[in-house]
């Protein structure tokens, strides 16, 4: 980035090859970048893969928590495929020990069995993602007073598998300008207490921010007018910072440090446009925050993050509904409070 700012013509020359793709990638419009082809498409495929992996893990966790919560309340309906779906989601994620606690075997419902066959075909490349029916639910059960709509438990992992097939070569860093700031974010060792772990990760980001402020001042001072305009207009520093934090948040999420991931995600968020995807806020940011919120026991807050994705990423409808149901279930016997 320092080189780009000092010699902005380098930037112009580089992006000229696939201008539309770079613009899309810069604004975290990964599907647009893929459609444009070229170098940005390769980077965008890598982003899509990570995004769908985070969402798939979130979906599995949502199924697990829904089933476990309902079972613990002692009212999990015996006449529903829901328990089977929980097992299917866990099994698909390779969480076999937990899956063993739920009904397994062939799906009792023909439509469900047929859907599973289709997913397998898409994942091994003999069918296309577009063959997958877009809408939810997969199963509608009629119950007293209404219906029970169960979404497809395999959809997001299939998206991730297709992304993996499409990701021909994983670049070292999917972002053009993120690698050379030279500010490694060294996270502390995991603290025993989750909230303290989040605080420690916040402090680490704060240290990086102080260095980043200084770096930005230096870079700006050394840049010519065009370079400064690039730095400011494209929000290069902020974008690079956000990507760094989201990368680390996704990584620590995989190790169970949900409070740390949540802190990193919240610090990465562009608070001036907190409900919009753009140069700072990537779809993965919202997926990571949703996943972290669920892991720290706040599924209602996870819905807030998912809500941002709903319009542009219809494949999130299923996990959204599973979380919706979990939230409703957790409040079944509560009496609400309201204030002006």
């Amino acid at each position: 980035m320092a080189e780009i700012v000092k010699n902005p013509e380098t930037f112009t020359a580089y992006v000229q090859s696939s201008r539309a793709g770079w613009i899309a990638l810069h604004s975290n419009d990964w599907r647009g970048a893929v459609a444009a082809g070229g170098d940005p498409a390769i980077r965008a495929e890598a982003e899509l893969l990570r995004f769908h992996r985070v969402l798939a893990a979130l979906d599995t966790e949502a199924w697990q928590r829904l089933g476990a919560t309902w079972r613990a309340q002692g009212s999990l309906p015996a006449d529903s495929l829901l328990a089977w779906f929980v097992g299917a989601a866990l099994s698909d994620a390779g969480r076999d020990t937990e899956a063993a606690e739920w009904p397994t075997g062939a799906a009792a419902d023909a439509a469900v069995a047929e859907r599973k066959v289709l997913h397998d075909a898409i994942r091994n490349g003999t069918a296309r993602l577009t063959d997958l029916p877009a809408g939810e639910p997969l199963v509608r059960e009629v119950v007293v007073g209404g219906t029970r709509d169960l979404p497809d438990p395999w959809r997001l992992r299939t998206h991730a598998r297709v992304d993996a097939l499409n990701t021909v070569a994983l670049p070292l860093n999917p972002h053009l300008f993120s690698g050379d700031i030279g500010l490694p974010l060294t996270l502390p060792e995991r603290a025993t207490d989750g909230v303290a772990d989040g605080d420690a990760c916040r402090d680490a980001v704060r240290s990086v921010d102080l260095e980043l402020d200084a770096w930005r001042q230096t870079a700006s001072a050394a840049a010519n007018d065009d370079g400064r305009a690039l730095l400011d207009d494209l929000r290069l520093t902020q974008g690079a910072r956000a990507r760094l934090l989201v990368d680390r948040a996704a990584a620590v999420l995989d190790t169970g440090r949900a409070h740390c991931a949540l802190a990193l995600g919240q610090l990465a968020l562009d608070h001036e446009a907190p409900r919009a995807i753009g140069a700072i806020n990537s779809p993965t940011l919202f997926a990571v925050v949703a996943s972290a919120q669920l892991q720290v026991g706040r599924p209602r807050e996870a819905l807030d993050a998912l809500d941002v994705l709903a319009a542009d990423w219809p494949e999130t409808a299923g996990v959204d509904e599973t979380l919706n149901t979990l939230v409703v279930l957790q409040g079944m016997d509560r009496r609400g409070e309201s204030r002006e």
Partner: protein
Amino acid sequence: MTRPAVLALLLLPLVAHAGNLRYAEDQAPALLNPVYGSSMAEARASELLFEGLYTDDQELATRPSLAESSELMPDRLSMIVALRTDVTWHDGQPFTADDVVFTITAMLDKGTASTEYGRVAWIKSAEALDAHRVRLTFARPELHPEDKLFFKIVPKHLFSGLPLKRGDTFRTKPVGTGPWRLTQFNEDNSVSFRKHGDHRNSTGIDEVTLREVADKNYQAKLILYESLEALVRVLPRDIAMLQNNRKVELYPYQTNSWWYVGYNLNRPGLNNPQVRKAISALVDVDALLAPVGTGARVSGPFVPSSPYYNHDVRLTEADADVADAAFVAGGLSRVGEAWTVAGKPVVLTLVAHQSLESVQEVTINLQSQLQTAGIRLEVQFLDDAAWKERVWRNHDFDLMLSQWTFDRNEDIREQFHSQGTRNFVGYQSPEVDGLLDKARDAADPFVRKATLRELHAKIATDQPMLFLWTLDSYAALSVKVKNVVIHPFSFFTFAPSWTMK
């Protein structure tokens, strides 16, 4: 606020020292009796002072607070709650079963006119079995009654009897069992709290000070100048400034809060759905929202991320043709530039609480939009006492601008049921009452979810309110405050575990 006034605020003799957390409210609560809670400021202060039998843990699951344990009878029609024996009130008196029975009985007493009546209406009776055991009997079988026992308990020995009165001296001299006790209301409208030394749990903050900062524009400056440690809600325009400041941490947090313009359905004309439809169609909600901040439009009584939000319901859109047709269908005539009824120009009175954020921008904009379309709108800004009198008690308004904030249960029964205690607009719909009952009684979460989505659609069609928006919520805390977990509704529920450097 003038510059000297700001300086005065900054120089207030509220000495910052380790262990003193100062937070801002737009308006200091005038009443700290949880039996009469109505504002979010009161809810937050109550969280410092009072406790319920049960509360939330950090994952928002139910855990005992003043209760030690409970036993639900096999018929689920009663339960026995065993109380903690190590609890004292802030005045040193022991907490006993009599306090629990007194609180419930007082809230159930119609003469008390508790704003929290709905939270105990499911309890038929409460009886002290001994000093630390209470039997609660229910109107209907309950599955997990402890989930409803979050309301705050007040001390029997500080009231002269039943019913309670809003004006009881307790309102300004509250005594609770919570982790902080009130020390005084100060002359500058701040309120001071000090750690309750006998509380069973240690707290990391010795003192809490609620500072009234009526002009929200200065709240962010005060935290930057280290004259505050916490802002409960940051104005959208201040977010960028705070985001780039290294002494302040922003915490986005989820609130189920939405704004609305309520139509008084007891007023002639406004009880006509065509007239309400017409007025709603005159309002460009996006233009109202733009100067207020970032948020999302809502089409009904839930926020878009709610499990109950019906995404098939469309947002209202400003459409002069729709408005014209609906006014005519509603019996109005246009004479010149003005809409008239029986030859007289329509003049509506809109009331708004003076401390509502950005209230002037919104009302002036709304007034202008309606005026341009031929409806004269007279706006009245009410202080807290007048608001309670005009809106809560007398329902004396044509239109009201306000917001509701819900805990995560998003229980809108009190606002929309024909018998609801917060149904200020006088909405009466047997169909909605039936859906609310069905949702309440549903044993299956899928059924409740679908029922409340249906309810959303029905209410949106009836338009007892013009639903406006939900705003993004951020708290700001000094980086000196650590271990921060914010409760999405009560804010301070987990504050006892906060620490300060």
